[in-house]
């Protein structure tokens, strides 16, 4: 006769999931587990030239259907603070535009662990030719946020020409920052 069911609670040693008649897992794939932090911000207006940090015309995404997990990030003039410690995936995606066929556009993620000195941790770049060129670049990093008061992140653009632009929009995402908590530190 084919085996259609296993008595996990009585045949497997150690704690087992409640769904299998056990008392609950305390590590690994915990009961009710999953991601515990997620947030997304975007640039709401166009700007040209190199900017560090991107400090204004920022908003938390608010289009129809948007959702986040947890309290989300805090933005203070372009310095983003995390709501909790943990391993966080951070990415910056930007819509580039030039009307002047003007070499490269670079985007960067800078982080600090002492709330003072920032270091480059990720870069994305696009070559902007010919005139009226559009492109999109992404920079991504995974950060170990051990202290929410000292581990912070900023976003930068580094353009070869002042005519190069980052596109923003307040109704949908053109250039945006993503923050996803992957797990405990």
């Amino acid at each position, binding site marked *: 006769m084919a085996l259609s069911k296993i008595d996990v609670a009585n045949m497997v040693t150690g704690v087992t999931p409640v769904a299998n008649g056990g008392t609950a897992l305390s590590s690994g794939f915990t009961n009710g587990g999953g991601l515990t932090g997620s947030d997304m911000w975007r640039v*709401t*207006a*166009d*700007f*040209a*030239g*190199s*900017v*560090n*940090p*991107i*400090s*204004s*015309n920022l*908003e938390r995404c608010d289009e129809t259907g948007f959702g986040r997990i947890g309290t989300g990030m805090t933005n203070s*003039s*372009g310095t983003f603070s995390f709501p909790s410690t943990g391993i966080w995936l951070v990415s910056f995606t930007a819509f580039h*535009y030039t*009307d002047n066929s003007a070499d490269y556009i670079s985007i960067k993620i*800078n982080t600090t662990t002492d709330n003072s000195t*920032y270091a480059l941790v990720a870069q994305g770049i696009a070559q902007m030719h010919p*005139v*009226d060129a*559009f492109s999109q670049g992404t920079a991504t990093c995974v950060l170990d946020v051990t202290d929410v008061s000292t581990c912070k992140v*900023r976003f*930068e653009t580094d353009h070869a020409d*002042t*005519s190069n*632009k980052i*596109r923003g*929009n*307040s*109704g949908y995402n053109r250039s945006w920052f993503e923050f996803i908590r992957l797990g405990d530190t």
Partner: protein
Amino acid sequence: MPDKKGRPDHIEDALSSMHTNQWFTYTDSKNKIYANVRLTEKIGVNGELVDNPVTELPTETAVNAKLKEMQDAWDAANGG
């Protein structure tokens, strides 16, 4: 904002071409009209926030003229 073919079609195209950095903002980012344009207090330069060097908003006439200039240039370059 430029349409998908790149032709400038909004005051923001003109504004972002008049000065570099994030020198302007809107009192209502969901309603991007000239009446809602404001100067930002600080801009990010070399990792620091400094006073916005732009101290005066361009007039609506100047913004519209800049947009028209950009549209004419685009049309001339694209056979318009």
